[in-house]
């Protein structure tokens, strides 16, 4: 059995259901793989772990992966299970935000640590500066939705599958909220993809391992899409902290299924180019300065899916 270590971008939750399902249902074992799944968290930079040799493959967002690649980290997208973006900006209606034109002068909560690129890109498209003044005041949002509930920010970043529901659960009704979806605003970027080291991929044996891994993972994803409740329970069992709740994970799985629905695992080049274009158009301070070369490969998915 070949050992593979997967580094997640965040803590154990239904966002990564496909991998847990594949492990739990024995899809990996069928491929002859022994997969270890390492949860992430706000203090984990998956690229660092990958470069440090702590993992063979990781889940990351394309913007931060491309930024890392420009920093000299030779990582390559080998598969893209997520088709659509789940990121949005959620605002309290009472704060007076109805359209993006109302952002000026408001405080907006943003995730940093590699997740800030789509937002910065959007703001530069809107022509809003992000260092206060006549633009917007940016708040580095912590782990949760408190800034909105405590009215420290007019809007905060949420994922359709997670934080948005936390706001709802806290007792705020959808009618009291305004959502700005990144896809609708035309600034969506590719989210959870699978990445590996370029030099390791040059080794056919490793590539073969990745092929098996992607094939089994996609099987897991499709199973999860079809059996969301079971998938959620599998995730729950794998949560070592015991902090997740069943209701929340089931709902999250339902939302995640919408994002993975359009993907068979292969990267859609048009989506990739759209993300790159968005990142390069970031005004005076673009996220990446030149079109990335070799940042993705279809070699793995080609073999895995045929």
């Amino acid at each position, binding site marked *: 059995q070949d050992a593979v270590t997967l580094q997640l971008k965040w803590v154990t939750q239904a966002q990564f259901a496909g991998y847990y399902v594949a492990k739990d249902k024995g899809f990996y074992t069928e491929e002859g793989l022994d997969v270890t799944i390492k*949860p992430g968290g706000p203090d984990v930079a998956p690229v660092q772990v990958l470069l440090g040799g702590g993992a063979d493959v990781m889940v990351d967002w394309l913007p931060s992966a491309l930024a890392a690649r420009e920093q000299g980290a030779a990582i390559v997208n080998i598969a893209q299970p997520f088709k659509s973006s789940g990121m949005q900006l959620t605002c309290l209606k009472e704060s007076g935000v109805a359209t993006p034109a109302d952002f000026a002068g408001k405080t907006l909560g943003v995730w940093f640590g590699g997740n800030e690129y789509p937002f910065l890109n959007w703001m530069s498209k809107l022509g809003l500066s992000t260092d206060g003044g006549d633009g917007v005041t940016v708040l580095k949002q912590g782990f949760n939705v408190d800034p909105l509930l405590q009215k420290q920010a007019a809007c905060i970043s949420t994922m359709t599958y997670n934080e948005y529901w936390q706001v709802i659960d806290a007792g*705020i009704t959808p009618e*009291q909220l305004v959502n700005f979806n990144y896809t609708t605003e035309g600034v969506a970027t590719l989210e959870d993809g699978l990445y590996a080291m370029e030099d390791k991929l040059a080794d056919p044996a490793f590539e073969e391992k990745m092929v098996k891994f992607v094939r089994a993972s996609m099987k897991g994803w499709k199973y999860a899409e079809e059996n969301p409740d079971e998938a959620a329970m599998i995730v729950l069992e794998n949560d070592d902290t015991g902090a997740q709740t069943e209701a929340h994970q089931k709902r999250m799985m339902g939302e995640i299924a919408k994002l993975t629905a359009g993907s068979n695992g292969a990267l859609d080049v048009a989506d990739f180019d759209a993300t790159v274009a968005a990142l390069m158009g970031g005004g005076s301070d673009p996220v990446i300065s030149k079109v990335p070369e070799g940042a993705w490969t279809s070699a793995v998915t080609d073999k895995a899916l045929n």
Partner: protein
Amino acid sequence: MKAVVPILTVLAVIVALWYAAAVWMNAPWERDQAARAGTAITFAQLLPLTMVQERPVLPAPHQVAVGLWEGLAGQAITSKRSLVYHGWVTLSATLLGFAIGTTAGVLLAVGIVHNRAMDLSVMPWAIASQTIPILAIAPMIIVVLNSVGVSGLLPKAIISAYLSFFPVVVGMVKGLRSPDAMQLDLLRTYNASRAATFWKLRLPASMPYLFTSLKVGIAAALVGAIVGELPTGAVAGLGARLLQGSYYGQTVQIWAALFTAAFAAAALVALIGAVQRVTLRRMGMAR
């Protein structure tokens, strides 16, 4: 024993203040909710609501108590929802880190006391090392150790050791230097070797300092273990509980984990205190 009444009194006052603060801090949310619903709310209606919020700004004491009770006693201790289980995960890293940190601290102190070059060069840098924000380098330590194949308990323990060695160094240097000139001169008149001076004078004389710094050190080790749990992917342990709690806005869970950590620290410190009393009494240094 005569401390019991004062402590209980102080606790009672704190709990009372805490309840008052809980009402005060949780009330705006209820008022906002009422306003959003377009209704008015009286204080009498509001009061009970502030005691039972799902995501309170400040949970009421009984909410924390219930959270603690469920976490500690309401689960099988092997359950992932048990605070005993998570407490043990953190505690094992704490103890290992404390052992490493104490050993390193004592050895460094011995070196500093016996070697002037070490004295002059190490001390300022030991101080500087403690001004480095541990949360910033903890992920790097984990990654670096990971890349050389070390994972699991040890990386956490090393972060915990990083925090606990410093008080031990400072205390032990002070302790090993605490013999006065006359006590040292006495051994010189016997032409005692450095080793004899160490074992028969410096080490016994340093015991009170050692225990004091061990108390500080073990509390620091616990904090280190918790910090070390965050960048390991928050798999298990009190740090993971804290993090997950804040991620999902489960205020009560944060507070329960927080209190468990503080109880653990208090228990560890008390344990060292007990060892200290026994040792010092044996040595005739406590009266």
